[in-house]
């Protein structure tokens, strides 16, 4: 059913756009679903600071969810982790190890060759400002970029949005589920995403990515979410 839907969707897009890109839609629509990684041992190491509760984690997740950037993007709810990772990304379990403020990084918004985006259209680049969250997993550290605002240089400067790392500090030590990104280069939209966090792998997961909130909220524990 899903393949049929994808096929119909790709056909409709091709008809509507009447472009060479239609073949890409068809190709993307038939990507095989990769296997989800098994639960990593790193989850056992997660340990939030004393007193940090699921509510604290929710508050940190809400900072990103209600940001100016969230208002800038039209996003669709993703039906499953498999759907969100079916072009070769992997689902990783780990612990949040570090959070940094980022003031002005290039944002790949302009279409460019070889499937990679560019930040500039021949002038000043499009930028984003927010925080970076390091998640340490067995395979190494994955950095998740969390934009709070995006725009041109003067737009960012005038936005008044200043990343406050302390708003996210409760996440340090939390169990985390991450989907690795599919795009290299200056991007946040196609980069790794933090799906969920929890105080313990046996605790209820807290949704960090609004697109996967329904999937996360349906899982009784982070372990169960990871296991699919």
């Amino acid at each position, binding site marked *: 059913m*899903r393949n049929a*839907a*994808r096929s*119909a*969707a*790709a056909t*409709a*897009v091709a008809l*509507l*756009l*009447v*472009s*060479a*890109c239609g073949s*890409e*839609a068809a190709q*993307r*629509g038939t990507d095989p679903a990769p296997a989800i990684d098994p639960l990593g041992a790193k989850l056992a190491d997660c340990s939030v600071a004393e007193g940090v509760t699921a509510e604290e984690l929710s508050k940190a997740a809400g900072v990103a969810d209600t940001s*100016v950037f969230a*208002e*800038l*993007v*039209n*996003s*669709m*709810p*993703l*039906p499953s982790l498999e*759907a*969100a990772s079916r*072009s070769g990304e992997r689902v990783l379990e780990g612990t949040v190890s570090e959070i940094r403020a980022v003031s002005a990084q290039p*944002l*790949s*918004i*302009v*279409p460019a060759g070889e*499937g*990679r*985006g560019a930040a500039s*259209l021949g002038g*000043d680049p*499009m930028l984003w400002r927010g925080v970076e969250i390091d998640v340490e997993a067995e395979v190494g550290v994955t950095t998740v970029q969390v934009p709070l605002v*995006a*725009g*041109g240089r*003067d*737009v960012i400067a*005038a*936005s*008044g949005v200043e990343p406050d790392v302390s708003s996210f500090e409760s996440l340090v030590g939390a169990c985390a589920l991450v*989907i690795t990104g*599919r*795009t290299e280069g200056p*991007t*946040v*939209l*196609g*980069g790794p*995403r933090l799906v969920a966090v929890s105080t313990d792998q046996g605790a209820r997961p807290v949704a960090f990515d609004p*697109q996967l909130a329904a999937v996360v909220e349906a899982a009784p524990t982070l372990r169960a979410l990871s296991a699919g």
Partner: protein
Amino acid sequence: MRFARILGVAAIVSAIALTPAQSASADPFGGEPGGYPWRADSRDHWYCFHPSIPGGSQWVFHDAMANLDAQTVMWDRFASSCGSSTDIIYMDNPDLGYGIAGAALCWTLAPGSSSVCDQFWVALDPWEIANFWQPTYAPLDTHIQQNIRHETGHTTGLTHNGTPTSAMRSGLLPDLGFYNFVWMLYESPHHVDHINGAY
């Protein structure tokens, strides 16, 4: 031509009155405190196409801008080439990110302002919609057209809000059958009042 367009859309706008309406003060608007940060610089809304927009699909964008023109006080102004005075540069980007259908980002501000945008870049990923669309939702072409109108709405200052049935709804669209046309429209009077009040 413009008159005929207005007549056509007016009939549809009358039908949308079937949906519950909110007052324009019910949610924030671009440039207002607590609202979406940016709005356009004037009612003349100039737009152009990045080379990534294929010639065969440009009518969808013209249609979206014509709807904005017909529904509100704003004027659709097409520029055959993009320049510093163009208000919107539309671009297709097939690699925006999983589940990301579009984004409207302000690239540069109007002189002396912190909330009036001189030029928006609107990036769209119709392929991403196709990846997640299912036959149980509104038709795919409805989604693709709505996505353009949605992002165009952001360039006027409209926000995502609780409006259940309009172009400003984010995400996948329920299939409303005959009433799927509501996804093509800014809600009247709610969105329309916002725009008409600002420009």
